């Protein structure tokens, strides 16, 4: 799959050129615009309406038919929403969890992916098969025991790992099978001669991995980081189950609570919703290439 091409999206329109004698153009633009343009407006509409509502007064949101253009732009809704719930705290919590999970996944998936790709060790095939088999099992099957394990860890090992602590969001997700599989597949495509030469020169396994293999795998690592980031940042069910106190909420959970309190204050809800999206949108547009590649090559969405 050519992810780069998906990104640049300028494939030659071969079929158009080839379909016999060119039809007479009855429009000053490509016919596909007739579908794509209105379609794009429909797709963008929910967000546009959210932005408009987020700068209206409360009274304006309680008007039927809706007021499409507010009398004045009320930016004040944003600081008001920001103060109505501890959004700063939610962002901090989510950032702590996401950064930890992404970093640990990069490390552990690289180590394991390399071992499965290049080192022949006892039990390798069996363990790898087992790993792959669990990809079939939906998360919901493990959710109740995982809750009990996390509860036990908090009660008996260290409170910070237990229920209602951020550790409970991090520890079960330190590595994941998908990442191991993805990196293993990539490592196997690298020329093994480079690694063998380094080994001859006396480099250790870890030395080879960190000095030769990983620098050659940066696009794959970025892809893994992008998926893990997206998935962790937007995760909802697991935080909902293990977190109780608002101080520990992630942004998704905080947003739901905020919605539960301000059910009909649509101007505040929309401002809060916009704020919650900003970090993800910034990261998305900055690293669009890796996000799109991660989807095109692995097919994951949170």
């Amino acid at each position, binding site marked *: *799959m*050519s*992810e780069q091409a*998906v990104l640049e*999206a*300028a*494939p*030659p329109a071969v*079929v158009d050129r080839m*379909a016999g004698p060119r039809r007479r153009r009855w429009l000053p633009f*490509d016919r*596909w615009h007739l579908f794509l*343009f209105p379609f*794009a*407006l429909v*797709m*963008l509409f*929910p*967000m546009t309406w*959210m932005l408009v509502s987020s700068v209206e007064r409360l009274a304006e949101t309680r008007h*039927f038919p*809706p007021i499409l253009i507010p009398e004045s732009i009320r930016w004040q809704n944003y600081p008001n929403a920001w103060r109505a719930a501890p959004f700063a705290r939610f962002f901090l919590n989510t950032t702590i969890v996401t950064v930890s999970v992404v970093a640990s996944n990069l490390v*552990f*998936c690289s*180590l*394991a992916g*390399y071992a499965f790709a290049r*080192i*022949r060790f006892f039990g*390798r095939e069996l363990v790898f098969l087992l790993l792959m088999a*669990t990809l*079939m*099992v*939906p998360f*919901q*099957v*493990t*959710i*109740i*025991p995982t809750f009990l394990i996390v509860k036990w860890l908090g009660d008996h090992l260290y409170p910070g790992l237990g229920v209602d602590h951020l550790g409970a969001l991090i520890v079960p997700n330190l590595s994941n*099978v998908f990442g191991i599989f993805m990196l293993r597949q990539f490592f196997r495509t690298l020329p093994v001669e480079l690694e063998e030469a380094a080994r001859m020169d006396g480099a250790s396994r*870890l030395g080879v991995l960190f000095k030769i293999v990983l620098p050659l795998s940066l696009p794959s690592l970025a892809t893994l980081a992008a998926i893990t980031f997206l998935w962790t940042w*937007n995760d*909802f*069910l697991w935080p909902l*189950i293990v977190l109780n106190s608002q101080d520990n909420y992630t942004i*998704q959970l905080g*947003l*739901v609570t905020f919605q539960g309190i301000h059910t009909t204050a649509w101007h505040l*809800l929309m401002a809060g*919703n916009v704020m*919650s999206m900003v970090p*993800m*949108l910034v990261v*998305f547009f900055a690293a669009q290439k890796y996000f*799109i590649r991660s*989807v095109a090559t692995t*097919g994951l*969405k*949170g």
Partner: protein
Amino acid sequence: MLRSEHTAGWALASPAVVMFGVFSIFPIVWSIVLSFQDNNLLTGQAEWIGLKNYQALTKDPIFLKAIGNTLKYTAAFVPLSVVLGLFVAVAMNRKLRLMALYRTAVFITLAISTISTAIMFLWLTEPTYGIVNAGLEKVGLPPQGFLADPNEALWVIVAMTVWGWLGFVVIIYLAALQGIPQELLEAAAIDGAGRWSTFRNVTLPLLGPATLFLVVWLTINALQLFDEIYLTTHGGPLYSTTVIVYYLFIKAFHHFQAGLGAAAAYVLFVGILLITIIQFWVGKRVVHYSS
């Protein structure tokens, strides 16, 4: 084989393998045990009751309704997403002005969480002040209850999830479309095939693997629907949007019936497995992979 190979291999793999054992294999096995127990999630009191949880599920009309709702949702969401995504991808697979706008409109949905999507659609479809009802009134249609109406709620969930997944479907199809060798399309044109015939007989079959992947992947995710339900309807009105995972969540984490929840999870697992196997089986007959 060197002994040091075994040591090195296990040393590198063990952190991930240990994590995997503790948070994957062990819970999968424990979940089976739980499903045969009357187990209180909070107190930990457990009693072996054999198949009684599974029997209770088959007799619970709400669970049966949850299965029905989940299947109904999946049967609507998957074909709609695939057909719309394919159409959009085909439309976008050419040089066009305004492409930046189109790409943004479609791909931005990838970065938006299920919760944010649900809040936006809750506002759009708000029965009293919502803009969709205003639009309906404008064209002379009666206002709808949407998420408050038992006959409509699930369809609003379908709409918001189709919106949310569209970027994903389009990327997969665009990548597949761009992987089609140009020579094939040229050969079809030289043989006198028109546009539609080329699409029908050359492009569409070549998109088979991508379509099979999408159908399987979207189905697996659809059967696990939860976030949007939790935010918008809480399974209501009148259980019209109670889906399997929502049922499981309430039983296990609100009523603390860990055993019943685990049994529901295994029913879901077996259901997903069966449906996936059927899809691959059908796919093998329909989809042709180019060698």
